[in-house]
């Protein structure tokens, strides 16, 4: 079966052109926008306030259960 023979009979070249244009439009909008957002992040530079860093750190504090396992791994017993 050749590609041309397996095309859906209802599908016209206009349909395909419309859908291709749809995809192109969406991607042409999304990629430049993503680039713009990334450039803006770079322009702003890294954050200097400690507030954010401390928030992340506090969220990542080891759980008590994990702390016990860490002690065990170091050869300490409670």
């Amino acid at each position, binding site marked *: 079966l050749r590609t041309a023979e397996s095309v859906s009979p*209802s*599908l016209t070249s206009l349909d395909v052109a419309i859908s291709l244009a749809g995809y192109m439009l969406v991607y042409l909008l*999304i990629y430049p926008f993503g680039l713009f957002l990334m450039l803006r992040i770079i322009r702003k530079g890294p954050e200097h306030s400690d507030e954010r860093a401390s928030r992340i750190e506090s969220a990542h504090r080891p759980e008590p259960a994990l702390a016990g396992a860490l002690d065990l791994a170091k050869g300490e017993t409670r």
Partner: protein
Amino acid sequence: MTQVLDFVPIWTLICGMAVFFYVLLDGFDLGVGMLFGLAPDASSRNAIMNTIAPIWDGNETWLILGGLGLLAAFPLAFAIIIPAMYFPILVMLLALIFRGVAFEFRLRDAENKTFWDRAFCYGSAIGTFAQGMVLGNFIRGFQVSGEQFAGTSFDFVNPFALFTGIALMFGYGLLGAGWLILKTEGSIQAAARRHGRICLIAVLVAIGAISLWTPFMSEEIATRWFAWPNIAFFSPVPIATVVIALFTWRALDSNSEVIPFVGAMGLFVVSYVAIVISLYPMIVPHHFTLWQAASSERTQAFLLIGTLVLLPVILMYTGWSYWVFRGKVRSDIGYD
């Protein structure tokens, strides 16, 4: 080769389940996406986003499973339904792209209502509307000659499908409101209850209208439901619908945080059962049964091996992710 096992019921169950899980799961997060557009301020927008951020993309797994299951197990149905639904499915996919990207892009400026906040809401709404049109056209039936779709790519526009498209927006809105009641507190929850009530009324009107419309549209569906003794067997379905609707309405008005979502899912279950009763055993309504559209027994057996390994894995990680992210969300802690 003698037939040892009929794989068609198994594949019917797998595809039917996948589609139903998709409708329930992506249904609520698309609904949340639409309700997001009604949120009054940045903090409620962020909280609403956080209720679905960890799970929304996993929900779309079921769409892929349902679609590919249809392609592999019922290729004849796939070859007719997909070309017939070319534009609704295209629009749905493009809308879902917008919606998916909006999750990432809006976070870069979450304090302000940006283009991507709107993209998230409209993407959800358009995607839902397109899915509703696919459903309406599927129930209505396609123009078929031989083993091919014989209509044009624009046949999807018809009053019934437009109606089911709008109906599904309210249906997903109801699911989304149920989810927000479950996951949020305070003013966001109160707003979700208000929106849920409006959606519930619209859903009940839609269920009633579609129940009257379909028997007039198709004699087969009318006989299926109203001929004796079927009417006795099937009467629990409309009765259950009314009972669930009453419970959901009362739960929306009460303090219950779980029942509205369960009730919304219940309404989807009875609607799905009603569609199955109306159409079974046709997979291309009025033209082909599940057995006529099925791929060869060997194909179905071969595919079943992989699927039976994968399905429990998908179910487990899906269950796990819902478990990990259980409980209420807040606007200030979340995914970024």
